[in-house]
């Protein structure tokens, strides 16, 4: 296991290197934050002062070399928008995003696992049709649409939840549902098909032939086997989670990484864009690693082989 982790971590190095290059190339060409920082009225000289003071006039190679050197020191440059170090700006936002993503994941699990299991066990019934239909619908429905609707209905009309912002548990509910739904939609389908697969396995028949009650067959015998493919694909769902978070955070004014990123892109605040993309990439990689480790816990076949 230790070997495995070390191997995976070593593989990271070239990956991270590729990421820095791609990100840098993009950012280098991404245009000029200066005009966005000054009003429409600013003259060319005004812009030139600003550009010089930001060190944006160096050639490509110099800038890239500086970039990589700086990154190894944890320095992603200074946010042109906030005039602060980019990395701390990004890191400060992580708790908010973790909170939202975690809650959304819980919502997604809470919705998708029972529904997926239920519809698998009632295959081709109306329940199944309804749940599968619902999950496709959830997948087909744009995220922000749901968010705005939830605000209109539950926050504005019924005033059951705060409209936006972060703070109490109540603030978390609507964004978590919004983001959770889009993940749940895909996951329900997944749990269902994985469950169907498992229910068709011989050992499920064995369990039934032993006289194990059906509910226990599903929960004790089938569920954990169902979970293994679900976990694999759930990590692939991360990108849905991230893109969903970007949009959900904007709708609910949730001060997380997604919102920072959107605003940084709009303001051409490239240091922040670089840092966020980099941090997100590392997080995705780490989560993949953690998933692999979860296999060790959940699937004895891996551990012993």
């Amino acid at each position, binding site marked *: 296991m230790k070997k495995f982790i070390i191997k995976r971590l070593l593989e990271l190095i070239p990956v991270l290197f590729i990421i820095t290059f791609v990100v840098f190339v993009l950012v280098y060409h991404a245009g000029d934050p200066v005009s966005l920082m000054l009003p429409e009225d*600013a003259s*060319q000289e005004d812009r030139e002062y600003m550009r010089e003071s930001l060190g944006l006039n160096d050639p490509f190679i110099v800038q890239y070399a500086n970039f990589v050197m700086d990154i190894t020191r944890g320095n992603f440059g200074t946010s042109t928008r906030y005039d602060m170090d980019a990395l701390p700006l990004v890191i400060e936002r992580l*708790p908010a995003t973790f909170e939202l993503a975690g809650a959304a994941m819980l919502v997604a699990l809470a919705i998708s696992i029972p529904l997926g299991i239920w519809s698998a066990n009632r295959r081709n019934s109306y329940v199944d049709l309804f749940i599968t239909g619902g999950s496709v619908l959830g997948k087909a429905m744009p995220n922000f649409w749901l968010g705005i609707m939830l605000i209109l209905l539950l926050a504005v009309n019924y005033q059951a939840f705060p409209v936006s912002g*972060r703070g109490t548990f109540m603030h978390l509910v609507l964004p978590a549902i919004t983001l959770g739904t889009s993940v749940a939609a895909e996951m329900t389908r997944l749990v269902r098909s994985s469950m169907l697969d498992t229910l068709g396995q011989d050992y499920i028949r064995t369990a039934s032939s032993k006289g194990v009650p059906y509910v226990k067959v599903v929960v004790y015998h089938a569920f954990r086997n169902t979970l293994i493919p679900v976990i694999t694909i759930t990590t692939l769902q991360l990108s849905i989670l991230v893109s969903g978070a970007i949009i959900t955070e904007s709708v609910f*004014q949730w001060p997380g990484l997604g919102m920072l990123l959107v605003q940084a892109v709009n303001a051409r605040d490239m240091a922040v864009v670089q840092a966020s993309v980099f941090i997100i990439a590392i997080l995705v990689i780490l989560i993949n690693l953690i998933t692999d480790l979860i296999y060790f816990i959940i699937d004895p076949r891996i551990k012993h082989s």
Partner: protein
Amino acid sequence: MKQRWEWLTFIAVLVFFLAACSGESGEVGTDNGTENGSVSDGNLVIAQSADITTLDPQDSLSTNGERIFRNMYNRLFARNQDMEIVPEIVESYENVDDETWHFNLIEGITFHNGEELTAEDVKFSLERVMTDQGLKEYPYFTQLVEVNVLDTYTVEIVTDGPMPTLQHVLAKSGADILPKDYVEEVGMDGFVENPIGSGPYQFVSWDVDSEVVLEKFEDYYGEPGIWDMVTVRAISESSTRVGELLTGGVQLITDVTPNEWDRVNDNEGTSLVQGETTRVMLLMNRLTEGFATSDERVREAIDLAIDQQAIVDSVLRGSGVPVRSRVPEGVFGTDPDLYDTYVHDKERAKELLAEAGYEDGLEITLTAPRGRYPLDGEVAELIAVMLGEVGIEVNLELLESGTFIDVYSENENEELIMIGLADGLLDASYSLVHYTIDRAAGQTDYNNPDVDQLFQDASRNLDEESRLQQFKEIQQVVAEERPHTFLYQDKVNYGVSDSIQFEPRLDEALYFDHIQPN
């Protein structure tokens, strides 16, 4: 077997717990789920469409920042509700000669850390903004040459020549007085983390992209503040902002788009308040050789083809006034003849095009932003159609704000570019500089030596009356020669809770103490 399950449960619980913890510790006072309109606890919550980008008032240059800074810092001069320049921390002042001014400060003003505001602080602050090229406000302070301390409460300012706009500049954003000793002690980085001013409200916290919290400064030298705590939230999503207002989460929101007006007005306990802005939406014409718009007849045809009133009445629902000048009402130098008026004559437009040799039609490109100004994209689409009706086929290039401003500042646009220009100085010199030969070069390429001369004269003219005439004259010429085709002066729409009284200002600033609880 059991152990594995316990492990998984443990991890799940841990993740959730961490998430919950970070939620509790990360924030200060976001819990503003107060009942609709209750402000009795002395708390005011305002939501604007974007956050401030810095707490350094000299490096901000934004309306959003101004709304905070006006309550935290003091300047030598300020503008009252009617945009007249009045002394703020100046007791008296004297124009010693054309280039030299003396200002006597009010005594006994203290910063939030208890230190007294003196001439040293004024010198420090103004020198910073007039010498540090990295500051966004720097370009507006280049005419100041020297700031001298005459005694503890007297400052001398020397300008590079007769400067009719000195008081405008001293009342402008960026002229804020910072505490010299404090800044020197903690450095500028330390200052922006925990800024100190001398205004009626002092800094409590800033959560980037979320909210700024200020509280009443008890030792304020003037009338003490009327709010105990003021929170200014940043909510970019328009419907969310309105939602917060409707549910009483905030008492005042800015930038309500026309489609939301009914929601705000129909709701019990909230209403819409409309205010003027200095921003004029206009089309910049390229007069550069080779572009069709270099022909004055084409420019006139474009202006005649556009029905400014229809645009304002339809899409904008009246949230604007058609104008024929860049200097809007309320700004020094405005020409009332060019306000609330427009020219529209499709037949004449067609004739002009035919005269110019385009009877078979003309194809031009219009570059316009989308999402930078209220309903900008929609307005551009309308203009494209209106021009189409007189035979000008428009190739509409709508760009996201960031891309748009790149094209604009690099002058990469073709015949027409639509943009909104505001007047930060509330003085026509700020607006009309665009028609000078130097500034127009590369952009409109407008070149009229008479206009240039008039502008140079006005900018050194200390006589208000003749200066006003010079400005009017420039505007008349520009309205006929059309380097810019003017559309309308934008309005700003606030959503206001009935629990407060609010009067909008032309400069779009907010003075918390002018917002009264009902």
